[in-house]
């Protein structure tokens, strides 16, 4: 059977985007459930679907778990009144939520989520676009997400959204630097002389068959993680939203589906961020340090591919849980503390980390 490869790409893209959207909607549910568990509450437990909810035991159990909650959560955005205040700049106001969501969904194309080993022993990455500049592409596009926030804040023509937008841009600038510098040791190691140079996320994940990078570059991992929280605007860094100070920050004036887009964008950023952290520092689809799927005998074929995707998604969900766990543990930083942490602590630390690991990797590569 011959299928036009272009059409095939469209099918893949649609599949991946729907999976990401599904993950986002269930991430919202997970967020609500985890917050309620941490706060000693029950969380969403009433929404039921007519037929499935009626199944004895299972239907009741799933209802208690809130499995059907994402459906009304999403529909709610469609059916609410969509208010566009009179004082906004309409063009940018309507464009902002789109700009917030698109980069998050675009970055997904370079994120590999598993590997497939053919019988000939050839390793094929399961990814939409296996580009060599993967990591650079990812950084470049994901930073564009902040434009959505800034535009929303600016075009709302209202003081709280404006402050939120300013904060978001300042925060993005401050943490992007430390984030970029913190992954350099990995790139130096992966691209060491004598190795085939790459920025490909797939190859970086494959390079962690021994130690995971989080294990021998813990400082990088921590800096990257902190910056990831800042970049995704998650607590304790949700300066742009900070509902206790700025009402609702940049999306104060948004309602209905436009707000929904921001909401999905935030969670899509989180999903992609979790994927990237897993790929860079947590060994991708390697089940354990020093244990690859090949070593366990699940290398080849469909089973190996499914296992690799499963392990990767498991780690990713773990990261998502960590994101939410942090959110419901830590209070928000003050704005000046965020700036101080970014410029005075994380940036110098990441540079020092880079210097130390450059010397260390030089030593490893030449003397050993």
């Amino acid at each position: 059977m011959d299928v036009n490869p272009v059409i095939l790409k469209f099918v893949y893209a649609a599949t991946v985007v729907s999976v990401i959207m599904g993950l986002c909607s269930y991430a919202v549910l997970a967020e609500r459930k985890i917050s309620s568990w941490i706060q000693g509450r029950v969380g969403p437990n009433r929404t039921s679907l007519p037929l499935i909810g009626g199944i004895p035991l299972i239907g009741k159990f799933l209802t208690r778990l809130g499995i059907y909650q994402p459906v009304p959560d999403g529909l709610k955005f469609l059916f609410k009144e969509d208010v566009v205040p009179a004082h906004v700049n309409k063009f940018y106001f309507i464009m902002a939520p789109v700009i917030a969501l698109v980069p998050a969904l675009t970055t997904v194309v370079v994120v590999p989520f598993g590997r497939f080993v053919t019988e000939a022993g050839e390793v094929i990455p399961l990814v939409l676009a296996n580009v060599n500049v993967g990591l650079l592409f990812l950084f470049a596009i994901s930073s564009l997400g902040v434009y959505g926030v800034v535009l929303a804040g600016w075009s709302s023509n209202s003081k709280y959204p404006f402050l939120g937008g300013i904060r978001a841009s300042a925060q993005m600038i401050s943490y992007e630097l430390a984030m970029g510098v913190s992954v350099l040791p990995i790139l130096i190691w992966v691209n060491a002389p004598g190795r085939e140079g790459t920025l490909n996320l797939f190859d970086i994940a494959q390079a962690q068959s021994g130690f995971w990078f989080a294990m021998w570059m813990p400082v990088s991992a921590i800096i990257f993680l902190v910056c990831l929280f800042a970049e995704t605007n998650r607590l304790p860094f949700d300066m742009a939203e900070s509902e206790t100070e700025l009402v609702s920050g940049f999306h104060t004036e948004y309602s209905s589906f436009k707000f929904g887009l921001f909401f999905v964008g935030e969670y899509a950023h989180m999903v992609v961020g979790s994927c990237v952290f897993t790929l860079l520092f947590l060994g991708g689809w390697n089940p354990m340090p020093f244990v690859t799927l090949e070593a366990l005998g699940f290398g080849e074929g469909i089973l190996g591919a499914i296992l690799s995707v499963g392990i990767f998604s498991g780690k990713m969900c773990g990261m998502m849980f960590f994101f939410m766990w942090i959110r419901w543990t830590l209070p928000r930083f003050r704005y000046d503390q965020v700036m101080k942490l970014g410029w005075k602590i994380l940036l110098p630390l990441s540079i020092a980390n880079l210097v130390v690991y450059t010397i260390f990797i030089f030593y490893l590569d030449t003397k050993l």
Partner: protein
Amino acid sequence: MPIVIKRRPLNFLEKLYLPEIARGLSTTFKKIWEKPVTLEYPEQRPTIPEGYRGVPTLVKDPEGREKCVSCQLCEFVCPPKAIRIKPGEIPENSEYAHVEKGPQEFEIDMLRCIYCGMCQEVCPEEAIWLQNQFSLSGYSREELVNNKEDLYELGGTLPDEHFKWRKKKEAAEHGSGH
């Protein structure tokens, strides 16, 4: 004199943030496994403490006789004037003909009632009681005026053993000095 609380300066580990964050995370992680404190309201009801002042009701004594003798003290004392009583004679052929009076109509307007409990306090017959019911709703104003049947339905029977009017009757019949 103001109380001055000395703040201990942060030690090195605390200044690093991370150990403290880990401590916070462990606290919240433990909380995840604890039983939720939520009372799932419509299915689970709170335990009502004794002496709770809910919706005012009329009660009957263990013999099934309405205790109210329509003295109208509650109507008189009611601060928001929520109570309307139309007193009536008790028919000659009734079993309780010896009782002074009974209410023909007894209405409590729940839109006016402030649940102060003065009617219960003032009632010489212990006929009106503020009981456990705390939630009450209706679609019209008329629905929220409890008439005599509603009040007795809500009130039920008060298991007291006074039997004041039976004793009165016995005293009248046997001429004892009670």
